[in-house]
């Protein structure tokens, strides 16, 4: 393992400065959102918005979104499990609920789960005492997810909704079930990559579900970061699978990297939202 510890710490320190700047920018429009939230309090939910979300939900379902194509690929669409999942994701948003708030709460639930998962991973000996770059990535990514969750919750609160402090109800049992079997960095990376892909796809789907431009930009902004987490995890996974963990270093030995390291992070030219969580999946009950 060739790790430049001081260099890595400096890079992460610079990263944290950038994070603070970005957070300031992201929250710059908070007062405008709060005004919208204040104007919504006591008001009936926007039926046009609910209709828009339900229309978009149908479109995404037709195109295999919300995990439908993933179910199909695994031959589960006709099974009882597939039917149960379809029943959940096909359920239209209720007119009595503020859809934007539900979408933000579901996003926060995914972020809460990501934080908990990275936190748990950092207690595993082969992560805690393992590759310094992997450990630093887990710590930094956990902090970034915490910032994302706080931002989604702030936006939900500004719109008059409750903050979501719980982890996502669909994926939490899956993570809990996986935890006892996490006996290698590869399995941890695989699990984290799945969560990052769910988050990326959810925020991509939200781009056409959310009508408020500020909220849409927030989702796009966070999506751009989760997509990078996913890219890094794919590359790390490929190196681990190739028994080349020593190449996971900063700076890397670029000449020694296998050719696949240049393409494995983006297997296709377009991302599709087929692992997206539907709006109400993680909404506060």
């Amino acid at each position, binding site marked *: 393992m060739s790790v430049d510890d001081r260099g890595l710490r400096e890079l992460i320190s610079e990263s944290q400065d950038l994070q603070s700047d*970005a957070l300031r920018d992201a929250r710059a429009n908070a007062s405008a959102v709060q005004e919208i939230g204040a104007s919504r309090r006591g008001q009936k939910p926007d039926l046009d918005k609910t209709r828009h979300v339900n229309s978009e939900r149908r479109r995404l379902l037709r195109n295999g979104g919300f995990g439908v194509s993933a179910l199909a690929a695994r031959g589960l669409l006709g099974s009882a499990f597939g039917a149960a999942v379809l029943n959940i994701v096909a359920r239209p948003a209720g007119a009595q609920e503020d859809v934007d708030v539900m979408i933000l709460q579901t996003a926060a639930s995914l972020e809460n789960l990501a934080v908990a998962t990275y936190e748990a991973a950092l207690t595993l000996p082969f992560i805690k005492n393992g590759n310094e770059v992997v450990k630093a990535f887990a710590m*930094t990514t956990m902090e970034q997810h915490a910032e994302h969750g706080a931002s989604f919750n702030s936006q939900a609160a500004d719109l008059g909704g409750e903050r979501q402090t719980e982890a996502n109800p669909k994926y939490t049992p899956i993570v809990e079930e996986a935890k006892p079997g996490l006996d290698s960095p590869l399995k941890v990376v695989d699990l984290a990559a799945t969560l990052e892909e769910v988050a990326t796809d959810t925020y991509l789907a939200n781009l056409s579900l959310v009508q408020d431009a500020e909220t*849409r930009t927030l989702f796009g902004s966070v999506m751009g970061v989760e997509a990078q987490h996913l890219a890094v995890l794919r590359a790390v996974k490929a190196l681990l699978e190739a028994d080349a963990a020593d190449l996971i270093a900063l700076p890397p030995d670029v000449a020694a990297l296998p050719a696949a390291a240049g*393409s494995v992070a983006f297997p296709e030219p377009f991302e599709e939202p087929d692992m997206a969580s539907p709006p109400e999946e993680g909404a506060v009950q």
Partner: protein
Amino acid sequence: MTTETAATNASPINTLEAPASSGLSRRKFLAVSGMTAGVAVVAVACGSDDNASGTDPTTATTAAAGGSTTTAGGGGGGDLAIAAGAAGLEVLAVNTYGAALDAATAGDLGEVPPAVAEYATTAKKNHQAALDAWNGVLADNGESEVSDPPADLETTVNEAFAEVTDIGGVAELALMLEGIAADTYLDAQSMLEGSDAKQLAGSIQVIDRQHIAILNFVLGEYPVPDVFQSTENSVL
């Protein structure tokens, strides 16, 4: 998950005019996109059911270098103007990666590691697919496909490329281009009207951001330095 079929699946985007308050500097973007004076961005029928803005669908936009005017007789041109601008950026990316690969083949960049060659080849293909998708949108709406990069940006890139002597220099240049593209796609989210256009822009933004992560890694930088993606490099 990702797919190569986004271009073929994409129905014609909604061509509703972006709201005047959206902050879109169409004059600047059209200049960047290489669209010249007198080029009309004419709206045609749209495939999206997203008409929530209440904008009059019979309104079309004629965009010119000196500004934009609204004329009767079509839909709107906001999304199509962004599609054309995005296509121009993709042309520039395809051309730049192509030039880098040519230079590498000619031995002008020194030793080229396999991972870097693979990255450049894949990134070029990704941007070609994105270009094809945007041109498909334009063609579906009766517009001319874009084959030229934005002139100003092309000049800047060409000048920078002339100074490049090694793979590190190419990676820095690619990082700049990917940053411009990704930030522009994010910025476009506050302006686009059509659902398909929002999805297409987002689906490409994801890949561009992933290119950036790998370029950061290759350059020895932390691959995910930002908590939030910003729009600071957007050309909108």
